[in-house]
Protein backbone atom coordinates (compact mmCIF):
# COMPACT_ATOMS: atom_id res chain seq x y z
CA UNK A 1 0.00 0.00 0.00
CA UNK A 2 1.49 3.30 -0.99
CA UNK A 3 1.45 6.39 1.14
CA UNK A 4 -1.23 8.01 -0.96
CA UNK A 5 -3.59 5.12 -0.52
CA UNK A 6 -2.83 4.99 3.18
CA UNK A 7 -3.69 8.64 3.58
CA UNK A 8 -6.91 8.18 1.71
CA UNK A 9 -7.73 5.18 3.80
CA UNK A 10 -6.97 7.17 6.91
CA UNK A 11 -9.56 9.73 5.95
CA UNK A 12 -12.09 6.97 5.60
CA UNK A 13 -11.03 5.22 8.75
CA UNK A 14 -10.76 8.11 11.13
CA UNK A 15 -13.72 10.41 10.95
CA UNK A 16 -14.03 12.60 13.99
CA UNK A 17 -17.55 13.67 14.64
CA UNK A 18 -18.80 16.93 15.98
CA UNK A 19 -22.38 16.91 17.10
CA UNK A 20 -24.32 20.09 17.26
CA UNK A 21 -27.85 20.26 18.49
CA UNK A 22 -29.53 23.08 16.63
CA UNK A 23 -32.98 23.11 18.06
CA UNK A 24 -33.95 19.55 18.15
CA UNK A 25 -36.27 17.88 20.58
CA UNK A 26 -33.41 15.72 21.94
CA UNK A 27 -34.77 12.66 20.21
CA UNK A 28 -32.04 12.54 17.59
CA UNK A 29 -29.43 13.75 20.06
CA UNK A 30 -29.85 10.91 22.41
CA UNK A 31 -29.83 8.52 19.49
CA UNK A 32 -26.50 9.95 18.38
CA UNK A 33 -25.21 9.51 21.89
CA UNK A 34 -26.62 6.02 21.83
CA UNK A 35 -24.42 5.35 18.82
CA UNK A 36 -21.41 5.85 21.05
CA UNK A 37 -22.63 3.43 23.67
CA UNK A 38 -21.63 -0.21 23.82
CA UNK A 39 -24.58 -1.51 21.85
CA UNK A 40 -23.84 0.47 18.72
CA UNK A 41 -20.27 1.54 19.37
CA UNK A 42 -19.45 3.84 16.52
CA UNK A 43 -15.83 3.87 17.63
CA UNK A 44 -15.52 0.60 15.74
CA UNK A 45 -15.27 2.76 12.65
CA UNK A 46 -12.86 5.12 14.31
CA UNK A 47 -15.55 7.68 14.93
CA UNK A 48 -14.96 9.76 18.00
CA UNK A 49 -17.24 12.42 19.29
CA UNK A 50 -14.88 15.36 19.63
CA UNK A 51 -16.94 18.31 20.61
CA UNK A 52 -14.55 20.80 19.06
CA UNK A 53 -15.03 21.99 15.48
CA UNK A 54 -11.33 22.49 14.97
CA UNK A 55 -10.69 18.79 15.29
CA UNK A 56 -13.79 17.53 13.55
CA UNK A 57 -14.26 16.05 10.12
CA UNK A 58 -17.96 15.37 10.19
CA UNK A 59 -20.51 17.80 11.50
CA UNK A 60 -23.64 16.03 12.63
CA UNK A 61 -26.53 18.39 13.04
CA UNK A 62 -29.86 17.60 14.58
CA UNK A 63 -32.86 19.80 14.72
CA UNK A 64 -34.03 22.80 12.82
CA UNK A 65 -32.30 26.10 12.48
CA UNK A 66 -33.86 28.91 14.39
CA UNK A 67 -33.15 32.58 14.37
CA UNK A 68 -30.64 32.44 17.15
CA UNK A 69 -28.55 29.39 16.39
CA UNK A 70 -28.20 30.17 12.72
CA UNK A 71 -25.02 32.10 13.37
CA UNK A 72 -23.63 29.53 15.74
CA UNK A 73 -24.05 26.82 13.16
CA UNK A 74 -22.31 28.93 10.57
CA UNK A 75 -19.45 29.73 12.94
CA UNK A 76 -18.94 26.12 13.81
CA UNK A 77 -18.96 25.11 10.19
CA UNK A 78 -16.42 27.80 9.37
CA UNK A 79 -14.10 26.70 12.13
CA UNK A 80 -13.85 23.17 10.78
CA UNK A 81 -10.82 22.48 8.62
CA UNK A 82 -11.29 21.00 5.18
CA UNK A 83 -12.22 18.37 4.15
CA UNK A 84 -15.48 18.39 6.04
CA UNK A 85 -18.83 16.71 5.66
CA UNK A 86 -22.17 17.69 7.07
CA UNK A 87 -24.73 15.11 8.07
CA UNK A 88 -28.26 16.20 8.82
CA UNK A 89 -29.85 13.77 11.21
CA UNK A 90 -33.58 13.58 11.54
CA UNK A 91 -36.32 15.21 9.57
CA UNK A 92 -36.03 18.45 11.50
CA UNK A 93 -32.52 18.97 10.22
CA UNK A 94 -33.69 18.18 6.73
CA UNK A 95 -36.80 20.30 6.47
CA UNK A 96 -37.95 21.37 9.87
CA UNK A 97 -40.31 18.44 10.26
CA UNK A 98 -43.21 19.02 12.55
CA UNK A 99 -41.88 22.41 13.58
CA UNK A 100 -41.57 23.99 10.21
CA UNK A 101 -44.60 26.19 10.64
CA UNK A 102 -43.44 27.59 13.96
CA UNK A 103 -42.55 31.25 13.93
CA UNK A 104 -39.00 30.99 15.15
CA UNK A 105 -37.96 28.21 12.81
CA UNK A 106 -36.08 28.96 9.64
CA UNK A 107 -36.16 25.44 8.27
CA UNK A 108 -33.67 22.75 7.43
CA UNK A 109 -30.00 23.31 8.04
CA UNK A 110 -29.35 23.35 4.30
CA UNK A 111 -30.53 26.94 4.41
CA UNK A 112 -27.38 27.82 6.29
CA UNK A 113 -24.67 25.34 5.38
CA UNK A 114 -24.31 22.78 2.60
CA UNK A 115 -25.47 19.31 3.58
CA UNK A 116 -23.96 16.12 2.24
CA UNK A 117 -26.00 13.38 3.82
CA UNK A 118 -29.58 13.33 5.04
CA UNK A 119 -30.64 10.76 7.58
CA UNK A 120 -34.43 10.57 7.77
CA UNK A 121 -36.41 9.43 10.75
CA UNK A 122 -38.05 11.02 13.72
CA UNK A 123 -35.94 10.37 15.58
CA UNK A 124 -33.46 8.67 13.31
CA UNK A 125 -32.60 5.21 14.50
CA UNK A 126 -29.02 4.54 15.62
CA UNK A 127 -28.61 2.11 12.75
CA UNK A 128 -29.62 4.81 10.31
CA UNK A 129 -27.21 7.26 11.91
CA UNK A 130 -24.38 4.76 11.58
CA UNK A 131 -25.34 4.30 7.94
CA UNK A 132 -25.26 8.04 7.47
CA UNK A 133 -21.92 8.46 9.16
CA UNK A 134 -20.47 5.63 7.14
CA UNK A 135 -21.61 7.29 3.99
CA UNK A 136 -20.10 10.52 5.25
CA UNK A 137 -16.71 8.88 5.60
CA UNK A 138 -16.83 7.95 1.94
CA UNK A 139 -17.67 11.50 1.01
CA UNK A 140 -14.87 12.67 3.25
CA UNK A 141 -12.40 10.56 1.35
CA UNK A 142 -13.65 11.91 -1.96
CA UNK A 143 -13.40 15.44 -0.67
CA UNK A 144 -9.84 14.84 0.43
CA UNK A 145 -8.93 13.67 -3.05
CA UNK A 146 -10.50 16.79 -4.50
CA UNK A 147 -8.78 18.98 -1.95
CA UNK A 148 -5.40 17.56 -2.90
CA UNK A 149 -6.02 18.53 -6.48
CA UNK A 150 -7.08 22.01 -5.47
CA UNK A 151 -3.84 22.45 -3.57
CA UNK A 152 -1.82 21.38 -6.56
CA UNK A 153 -3.59 23.95 -8.68
CA UNK A 154 -2.75 26.61 -6.13
CA UNK A 155 0.93 25.79 -6.33
Amino acid at each position, binding site marked *: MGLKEFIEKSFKKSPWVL*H*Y*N*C*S*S*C*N*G*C*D*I*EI*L*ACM*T*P*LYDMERFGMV*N*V*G*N*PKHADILVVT*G*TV*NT*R*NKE*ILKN*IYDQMPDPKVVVAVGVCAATG*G*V*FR*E*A*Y*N*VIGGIDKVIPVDVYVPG*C*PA*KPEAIIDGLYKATEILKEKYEKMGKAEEVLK
Partner: protein
Amino acid sequence: MIRMSEKSTIPFGPQHPVLPEPIHLKLVVEDEKVVEAYPAFGFVHRGLELLVKKKDFNQMVYVVDHICGICSAMHGQSYCQAVEELIGVEVPERAKYLRVIWAEIHRIHSHLLWFGLLADAFGFENLFMLSWRIREKIMDILEATAGNRVIISVNIVGGVRRDIDNEQAKWVLNELKEVEESLKELDKIVRNNYTIKQRTVGVGVLSKDEAYKLGAVGPTLRGSGVPIDMRTTGYAAYKDLDFEPIVEKDGDTYARTIVRVKEMFQSIDLVRQAISKLPEGELNVKVKPNLPAGEVISRVEQPRGEVFYYIKSTGGKYLDRLRVRTPTFANLASLLHMLPGSSLADVPVLVLTIDPCISCTER
Protein backbone atom coordinates in the same frame (compact mmCIF):
# COMPACT_ATOMS: atom_id res chain seq x y z
CA MET B 1 -1.50 42.63 43.83
CA ILE B 2 -4.15 41.35 41.55
CA ARG B 3 -6.79 43.56 40.13
CA MET B 4 -9.73 41.51 41.14
CA SER B 5 -12.14 43.73 39.33
CA GLU B 6 -11.16 42.05 36.12
CA LYS B 7 -12.38 38.53 36.09
CA SER B 8 -12.35 35.79 33.57
CA THR B 9 -15.41 35.33 31.50
CA ILE B 10 -15.87 31.92 30.08
CA PRO B 11 -18.63 31.00 27.68
CA PHE B 12 -20.29 27.74 28.41
CA GLY B 13 -22.13 26.65 25.34
CA PRO B 14 -24.04 26.95 23.04
CA GLN B 15 -21.87 24.40 21.31
CA HIS B 16 -20.32 22.45 24.09
CA PRO B 17 -19.76 18.75 24.40
CA VAL B 18 -20.87 18.55 28.00
CA LEU B 19 -24.23 20.00 27.19
CA PRO B 20 -26.17 17.76 24.90
CA GLU B 21 -28.41 20.72 24.36
CA PRO B 22 -27.44 24.23 23.55
CA ILE B 23 -27.72 26.74 26.30
CA HIS B 24 -25.26 29.45 26.95
CA LEU B 25 -23.92 30.35 30.32
CA LYS B 26 -21.62 33.28 30.59
CA LEU B 27 -19.56 32.38 33.58
CA VAL B 28 -17.65 35.00 35.45
CA VAL B 29 -14.82 33.13 37.02
CA GLU B 30 -12.21 33.91 39.60
CA ASP B 31 -9.48 31.33 39.31
CA GLU B 32 -11.78 28.41 38.85
CA LYS B 33 -14.47 29.65 41.15
CA VAL B 34 -17.64 30.80 39.50
CA VAL B 35 -18.64 34.17 40.80
CA GLU B 36 -21.56 34.97 38.59
CA ALA B 37 -23.43 33.13 35.91
CA TYR B 38 -25.55 34.73 33.25
CA PRO B 39 -27.61 32.34 31.23
CA ALA B 40 -28.77 32.88 27.69
CA PHE B 41 -31.38 30.73 26.06
CA GLY B 42 -33.17 30.58 22.80
CA PHE B 43 -31.01 28.19 20.85
CA VAL B 44 -33.81 25.65 20.90
CA HIS B 45 -36.74 27.99 20.93
CA ARG B 46 -39.13 27.07 18.16
CA GLY B 47 -42.39 28.61 19.21
CA LEU B 48 -44.49 25.50 19.59
CA GLU B 49 -47.10 27.08 21.79
CA LEU B 50 -48.25 29.16 18.91
CA LEU B 51 -48.69 26.15 16.67
CA VAL B 52 -52.11 25.67 18.29
CA LYS B 53 -53.31 28.30 15.89
CA LYS B 54 -52.21 26.20 12.94
CA LYS B 55 -52.87 22.64 13.99
CA ASP B 56 -56.05 21.25 15.45
CA PHE B 57 -56.14 19.78 18.90
CA ASN B 58 -55.66 16.23 17.66
CA GLN B 59 -52.59 17.08 15.65
CA MET B 60 -51.26 19.04 18.56
CA VAL B 61 -50.78 15.80 20.50
CA TYR B 62 -47.94 14.90 18.16
CA VAL B 63 -46.52 18.38 18.38
CA VAL B 64 -46.41 18.38 22.17
CA ASP B 65 -44.86 14.93 21.97
CA HIS B 66 -42.05 16.62 20.14
CA ILE B 67 -41.54 19.31 22.73
CA CYS B 68 -38.94 17.01 24.10
CA GLY B 69 -37.77 13.59 23.13
CA ILE B 70 -36.92 12.49 26.62
CA CYS B 71 -40.19 13.17 28.36
CA SER B 72 -42.43 13.02 25.34
CA ALA B 73 -44.84 10.44 26.74
CA MET B 74 -45.66 12.61 29.71
CA HIS B 75 -46.06 15.70 27.58
CA GLY B 76 -48.59 13.88 25.47
CA GLN B 77 -50.28 12.50 28.53
CA SER B 78 -50.53 15.82 30.21
CA TYR B 79 -51.88 17.53 27.14
CA CYS B 80 -54.40 14.77 26.52
CA GLN B 81 -55.56 14.86 30.12
CA ALA B 82 -56.10 18.58 29.84
CA VAL B 83 -58.07 18.31 26.64
CA GLU B 84 -60.04 15.39 27.99
CA GLU B 85 -60.97 17.39 31.03
CA LEU B 86 -61.95 20.27 28.82
CA ILE B 87 -64.17 18.12 26.71
CA GLY B 88 -65.29 16.12 29.66
CA VAL B 89 -64.68 12.59 28.42
CA GLU B 90 -63.81 9.77 30.71
CA VAL B 91 -60.84 7.78 29.48
CA PRO B 92 -61.13 3.98 29.62
CA GLU B 93 -59.46 2.40 32.62
CA ARG B 94 -57.14 0.28 30.51
CA ALA B 95 -55.87 3.36 28.75
CA LYS B 96 -55.13 4.94 32.12
CA TYR B 97 -53.08 1.97 33.20
CA LEU B 98 -51.27 1.81 29.90
CA ARG B 99 -50.42 5.47 30.23
CA VAL B 100 -48.93 4.76 33.61
CA ILE B 101 -46.88 1.87 32.26
CA TRP B 102 -45.44 3.87 29.42
CA ALA B 103 -44.86 6.88 31.58
CA GLU B 104 -42.95 4.88 34.15
CA ILE B 105 -40.86 3.09 31.55
CA HIS B 106 -40.14 6.47 30.10
CA ARG B 107 -39.07 7.68 33.50
CA ILE B 108 -36.55 4.87 33.81
CA HIS B 109 -35.26 5.69 30.35
CA SER B 110 -34.92 9.34 31.23
CA HIS B 111 -33.22 8.74 34.55
CA LEU B 112 -30.76 6.31 33.06
CA LEU B 113 -30.00 8.76 30.32
CA TRP B 114 -29.50 11.47 32.87
CA PHE B 115 -27.31 9.25 34.95
CA GLY B 116 -25.10 8.53 31.97
CA LEU B 117 -24.80 12.20 31.19
CA LEU B 118 -23.92 13.01 34.78
CA ALA B 119 -21.22 10.37 34.67
CA ASP B 120 -20.00 11.95 31.46
CA ALA B 121 -20.00 15.35 33.11
CA PHE B 122 -17.66 14.28 35.84
CA GLY B 123 -15.60 12.29 33.43
CA PHE B 124 -16.55 8.75 34.31
CA GLU B 125 -16.75 7.30 30.85
CA ASN B 126 -17.25 3.73 31.88
CA LEU B 127 -20.22 4.57 34.04
CA PHE B 128 -21.74 6.47 31.17
CA MET B 129 -21.36 3.41 28.99
CA LEU B 130 -22.78 1.19 31.68
CA SER B 131 -25.90 3.18 32.30
CA TRP B 132 -26.59 3.66 28.62
CA ARG B 133 -26.11 0.00 28.10
CA ILE B 134 -28.77 -0.72 30.67
CA ARG B 135 -30.92 1.89 29.04
CA GLU B 136 -30.88 0.08 25.71
CA LYS B 137 -33.08 -2.59 27.27
CA ILE B 138 -35.62 0.04 28.14
CA MET B 139 -35.41 1.36 24.62
CA ASP B 140 -36.15 -2.13 23.36
CA ILE B 141 -39.21 -2.31 25.59
CA LEU B 142 -40.43 1.01 24.26
CA GLU B 143 -39.80 0.04 20.67
CA ALA B 144 -41.44 -3.33 21.05
CA THR B 145 -44.53 -2.01 22.77
CA ALA B 146 -45.01 1.42 21.25
CA GLY B 147 -43.17 1.20 17.97
CA ASN B 148 -40.54 3.85 18.38
CA ARG B 149 -37.46 4.14 20.50
CA VAL B 150 -37.66 7.67 21.74
CA ILE B 151 -40.78 9.51 20.76
CA ILE B 152 -43.38 6.89 21.31
CA SER B 153 -46.48 8.95 20.48
CA VAL B 154 -48.94 6.58 22.13
CA ASN B 155 -51.25 9.10 23.69
CA ILE B 156 -54.17 10.51 21.81
CA VAL B 157 -57.06 12.54 23.06
CA GLY B 158 -59.45 9.98 24.48
CA GLY B 159 -56.99 7.27 25.37
CA VAL B 160 -54.01 5.50 23.89
CA ARG B 161 -53.26 4.18 20.45
CA ARG B 162 -51.45 0.98 21.27
CA ASP B 163 -52.04 -1.94 23.49
CA ILE B 164 -49.82 -4.16 25.54
CA ASP B 165 -51.20 -7.68 25.38
CA ASN B 166 -50.55 -10.31 27.99
CA GLU B 167 -47.71 -11.94 26.18
CA GLN B 168 -45.94 -8.68 25.73
CA ALA B 169 -46.61 -7.72 29.33
CA LYS B 170 -44.89 -10.87 30.44
CA TRP B 171 -41.93 -10.11 28.22
CA VAL B 172 -41.77 -6.58 29.58
CA LEU B 173 -41.74 -7.86 33.15
CA ASN B 174 -38.99 -10.25 32.25
CA GLU B 175 -36.88 -7.54 30.70
CA LEU B 176 -37.50 -5.27 33.65
CA LYS B 177 -36.20 -7.94 35.94
CA GLU B 178 -32.90 -7.90 34.11
CA VAL B 179 -32.89 -4.13 34.19
CA GLU B 180 -33.49 -4.25 37.92
CA GLU B 181 -30.51 -6.53 38.37
CA SER B 182 -28.27 -4.14 36.49
CA LEU B 183 -29.73 -1.21 38.37
CA LYS B 184 -28.81 -2.80 41.65
CA GLU B 185 -25.25 -2.96 40.43
CA LEU B 186 -25.44 0.68 39.41
CA ASP B 187 -26.85 1.58 42.79
CA LYS B 188 -23.94 -0.10 44.53
CA ILE B 189 -21.45 1.72 42.37
CA VAL B 190 -22.99 5.09 43.13
CA ARG B 191 -23.04 4.44 46.81
CA ASN B 192 -19.54 3.04 47.12
CA ASN B 193 -17.36 4.87 44.66
CA TYR B 194 -15.09 7.33 46.40
CA THR B 195 -14.51 9.52 43.35
CA ILE B 196 -18.19 9.87 42.56
CA LYS B 197 -18.87 10.93 46.10
CA GLN B 198 -16.02 13.43 45.95
CA ARG B 199 -17.58 14.99 42.91
CA THR B 200 -21.19 15.02 44.06
CA VAL B 201 -21.42 15.24 47.83
CA GLY B 202 -21.79 18.83 48.89
CA VAL B 203 -21.98 20.10 45.35
CA GLY B 204 -24.92 22.35 44.59
CA VAL B 205 -26.55 22.30 47.99
CA LEU B 206 -30.13 23.51 48.18
CA SER B 207 -31.63 23.55 51.61
CA LYS B 208 -35.20 22.44 52.08
CA ASP B 209 -36.41 25.95 52.47
CA GLU B 210 -34.44 27.31 49.52
CA ALA B 211 -35.61 24.57 47.22
CA TYR B 212 -39.22 25.20 48.14
CA LYS B 213 -38.99 28.95 47.82
CA LEU B 214 -37.17 28.75 44.52
CA GLY B 215 -40.06 26.78 43.13
CA ALA B 216 -37.94 23.76 42.33
CA VAL B 217 -39.76 20.68 41.19
CA GLY B 218 -39.18 16.99 40.83
CA PRO B 219 -36.03 15.26 42.08
CA THR B 220 -34.39 18.64 42.60
CA LEU B 221 -37.04 19.42 45.18
CA ARG B 222 -37.30 15.93 46.59
CA GLY B 223 -33.53 15.71 46.94
CA SER B 224 -33.85 18.57 49.38
CA GLY B 225 -36.37 16.78 51.49
CA VAL B 226 -39.68 18.16 50.27
CA PRO B 227 -42.07 15.33 49.43
CA ILE B 228 -43.93 16.84 46.52
CA ASP B 229 -44.78 14.44 43.74
CA MET B 230 -47.62 15.17 41.35
CA ARG B 231 -48.36 11.50 41.01
CA THR B 232 -49.83 11.53 44.49
CA THR B 233 -52.65 13.71 43.15
CA GLY B 234 -53.81 10.50 41.53
CA TYR B 235 -54.18 11.33 37.87
CA ALA B 236 -54.40 8.47 35.40
CA ALA B 237 -54.21 5.24 37.36
CA TYR B 238 -51.87 6.41 40.08
CA LYS B 239 -54.68 6.62 42.60
CA ASP B 240 -54.96 2.85 42.52
CA LEU B 241 -51.24 2.20 42.77
CA ASP B 242 -49.20 2.01 45.89
CA PHE B 243 -46.20 4.30 46.16
CA GLU B 244 -44.63 7.00 48.24
CA PRO B 245 -42.68 10.03 47.00
CA ILE B 246 -38.96 9.43 47.38
CA VAL B 247 -37.18 11.97 49.49
CA GLU B 248 -33.56 12.57 50.43
CA LYS B 249 -32.52 15.13 52.98
CA ASP B 250 -29.10 16.46 52.02
CA GLY B 251 -30.10 18.55 49.04
CA ASP B 252 -26.84 18.12 47.20
CA THR B 253 -26.11 16.48 43.89
CA TYR B 254 -25.49 13.18 45.56
CA ALA B 255 -28.90 13.26 47.22
CA ARG B 256 -30.55 14.03 43.91
CA THR B 257 -28.67 11.19 42.31
CA ILE B 258 -29.89 8.82 44.97
CA VAL B 259 -33.44 10.09 44.54
CA ARG B 260 -33.31 9.34 40.86
CA VAL B 261 -31.75 5.94 41.34
CA LYS B 262 -34.43 5.05 43.87
CA GLU B 263 -37.10 6.35 41.56
CA MET B 264 -35.98 3.92 38.92
CA PHE B 265 -36.67 1.05 41.30
CA GLN B 266 -39.95 2.67 42.20
CA SER B 267 -40.88 2.93 38.55
CA ILE B 268 -40.14 -0.72 37.97
CA ASP B 269 -42.36 -1.50 40.91
CA LEU B 270 -45.12 0.74 39.54
CA VAL B 271 -44.95 -0.93 36.15
CA ARG B 272 -45.27 -4.30 37.83
CA GLN B 273 -48.26 -3.15 39.85
CA ALA B 274 -49.89 -1.62 36.81
CA ILE B 275 -49.40 -4.72 34.71
CA SER B 276 -50.79 -6.95 37.43
CA LYS B 277 -53.85 -4.74 37.79
CA LEU B 278 -54.27 -4.04 34.08
CA PRO B 279 -58.04 -4.13 33.45
CA GLU B 280 -59.64 -5.28 30.23
CA GLY B 281 -61.44 -2.78 28.07
CA GLU B 282 -61.29 -0.29 25.28
CA LEU B 283 -58.12 1.61 24.47
CA ASN B 284 -59.71 4.89 23.61
CA VAL B 285 -62.97 6.70 23.14
CA LYS B 286 -63.84 8.79 20.15
CA VAL B 287 -63.98 12.50 20.77
CA LYS B 288 -65.94 15.13 18.96
CA PRO B 289 -63.97 17.29 16.57
CA ASN B 290 -65.04 20.51 18.24
CA LEU B 291 -63.97 21.74 21.62
CA PRO B 292 -66.14 23.47 24.20
CA ALA B 293 -64.99 26.82 25.56
CA GLY B 294 -63.06 26.85 28.80
CA GLU B 295 -59.69 26.72 30.43
CA VAL B 296 -57.99 23.83 32.13
CA ILE B 297 -54.78 23.27 34.01
CA SER B 298 -53.26 19.84 34.00
CA ARG B 299 -50.21 18.78 35.92
CA VAL B 300 -48.22 15.60 35.48
CA GLU B 301 -45.05 14.39 37.14
CA GLN B 302 -42.35 14.09 34.54
CA PRO B 303 -38.94 12.55 35.19
CA ARG B 304 -37.69 16.08 35.79
CA GLY B 305 -40.63 17.17 37.85
CA GLU B 306 -44.00 18.63 37.50
CA VAL B 307 -45.13 19.82 34.07
CA PHE B 308 -47.89 22.37 33.94
CA TYR B 309 -50.26 22.59 31.01
CA TYR B 310 -52.68 25.40 30.67
CA ILE B 311 -55.10 25.24 27.79
CA LYS B 312 -57.79 27.64 26.85
CA SER B 313 -60.37 27.19 24.22
CA THR B 314 -63.07 29.42 22.87
CA GLY B 315 -64.64 26.62 20.90
CA GLY B 316 -63.85 25.16 17.53
CA LYS B 317 -61.17 22.83 16.32
CA TYR B 318 -58.28 24.94 17.47
CA LEU B 319 -57.23 25.77 20.95
CA ASP B 320 -56.95 29.41 21.79
CA ARG B 321 -53.91 29.22 24.03
CA LEU B 322 -51.57 26.53 25.10
CA ARG B 323 -49.09 27.24 27.79
CA VAL B 324 -46.51 24.78 28.98
CA ARG B 325 -44.46 25.37 32.08
CA THR B 326 -41.92 22.60 32.00
CA PRO B 327 -40.01 21.32 35.03
CA THR B 328 -36.66 22.61 33.83
CA PHE B 329 -38.15 26.04 33.42
CA ALA B 330 -39.10 25.93 37.07
CA ASN B 331 -35.70 24.59 38.07
CA LEU B 332 -33.76 27.29 36.26
CA ALA B 333 -34.03 29.52 39.28
CA SER B 334 -32.43 26.82 41.40
CA LEU B 335 -29.65 26.40 38.90
CA LEU B 336 -28.92 30.10 38.87
CA HIS B 337 -28.96 30.01 42.62
CA MET B 338 -26.49 27.12 42.77
CA LEU B 339 -23.95 28.23 40.19
CA PRO B 340 -22.28 31.19 41.91
CA GLY B 341 -19.68 29.97 44.34
CA SER B 342 -19.16 26.63 42.70
CA SER B 343 -15.96 25.67 40.97
CA LEU B 344 -15.63 25.63 37.22
CA ALA B 345 -15.12 21.90 37.23
CA ASP B 346 -18.47 21.48 38.95
CA VAL B 347 -20.44 23.52 36.46
CA PRO B 348 -21.32 20.55 34.25
CA VAL B 349 -22.33 18.60 37.31
CA LEU B 350 -24.47 21.45 38.53
CA VAL B 351 -26.09 21.96 35.18
CA LEU B 352 -26.91 18.31 35.06
CA THR B 353 -28.04 18.07 38.63
CA ILE B 354 -31.36 19.65 37.77
CA ASP B 355 -31.54 17.33 34.76
CA PRO B 356 -32.02 20.15 32.32
CA CYS B 357 -34.18 19.66 29.31
CA ILE B 358 -33.69 22.76 27.29
CA SER B 359 -35.97 21.83 24.46
CA CYS B 360 -38.72 21.53 27.06
CA THR B 361 -37.79 24.84 28.59
CA GLU B 362 -37.75 26.77 25.39
CA ARG B 363 -40.38 24.86 23.46
